[in-house]
């Protein structure tokens, strides 16, 4: 289930430690061709390895950035806010759009995410149909309408 398409041609990097949540997100994209361009990693350390082409992702083309990183906040090893801090303080990785997708709608998390330079913040809807609709809007905007360098 995990290594769906290898690590090349990735448009969406999904960073989510909860397998059930990750599978729901992927299921929401099943009906669109975007599903094939998603790569799932399970924590912040692996996310940084992917972006920086280190560790398990040594050998990945370092000039290929995803068009979107969908990032959970609460994760083991390195949490979402730390990932944002790392990516947004590095000139090279700063332009990659990062959208936090989390169950937290606490205004402290929202404000702190924006202050660290996150591009967007989405609170996960509880019902699958609403989640699927939100993910489809996220994918359409960030992959088809928005432009990256």
């Amino acid at each position, binding site marked *: 289930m995990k290594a769906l398409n290898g690590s090349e041609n990735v448009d969406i990097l999904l960073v989510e430690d909860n397998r059930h949540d990750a599978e729901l997100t992927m299921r929401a994209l099943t009906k669109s061709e975007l599903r094939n361009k998603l790569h799932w990693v399970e924590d912040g350390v692996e996310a940084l390895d992917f972006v920086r082409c280190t560790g398990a992702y040594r050998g990945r083309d370092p000039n290929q950035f995803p068009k979107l990183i969908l990032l959970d906040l609460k994760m083991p090893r390195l949490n979402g806010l730390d990932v944002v801090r790392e990516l947004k303080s590095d000139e090279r990785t*700063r*332009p990659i759009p990062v959208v936090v997708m989390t169950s937290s709608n606490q205004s402290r998390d*929202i404000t702190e995410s*924006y202050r660290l330079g996150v*591009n*967007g*913040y989405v609170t996960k809807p509880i019902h699958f149909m609403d989640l699927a609709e939100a993910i489809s809007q996220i994918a359409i*905007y960030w992959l088809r*309408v928005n432009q990256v360098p």
Partner: protein
Amino acid sequence: MNDFADVEVLLVEDNQSDAEMTMRALDRANLINKVYWVKDGVEALEFVRCTGPYESRDCQQSLKLILLDLKMPRLDGLGVLRELKSGEQMCPVPIVVMTSSNQDHDIAEAYRLGVNGYVTKPVQFASFVESVSRIGMYWLMVNQAPTL
């Protein structure tokens, strides 16, 4: 008391016909009542910071989105980003550049300055409407803006 309480989108655009086209497109997406239009970067900063003609605006009233043109008189879009997205007073309101420029250095510079998104205006009206309505659906319906 506060005339700007309902404003969710601040449109910053010096070109009247482009501004009208954007508002027409938002109208089709049923989002028009919540848009306020200013004509350059100086006025945008006054609106966001509640100064000048916007002194009476409630600064705790947060916007969901600033749609920002790049080429404008007095203060251009990159100048607005520089003012709003740097330093301790960083403004957390999402800013999306919407411009006719798709030049790499504009895109790169906008992201370097901390823009949240960047959209190149499609030339055809139908594609333009589609693009504006997608922007509206994501930024106003799905994305969560910070409370100030």
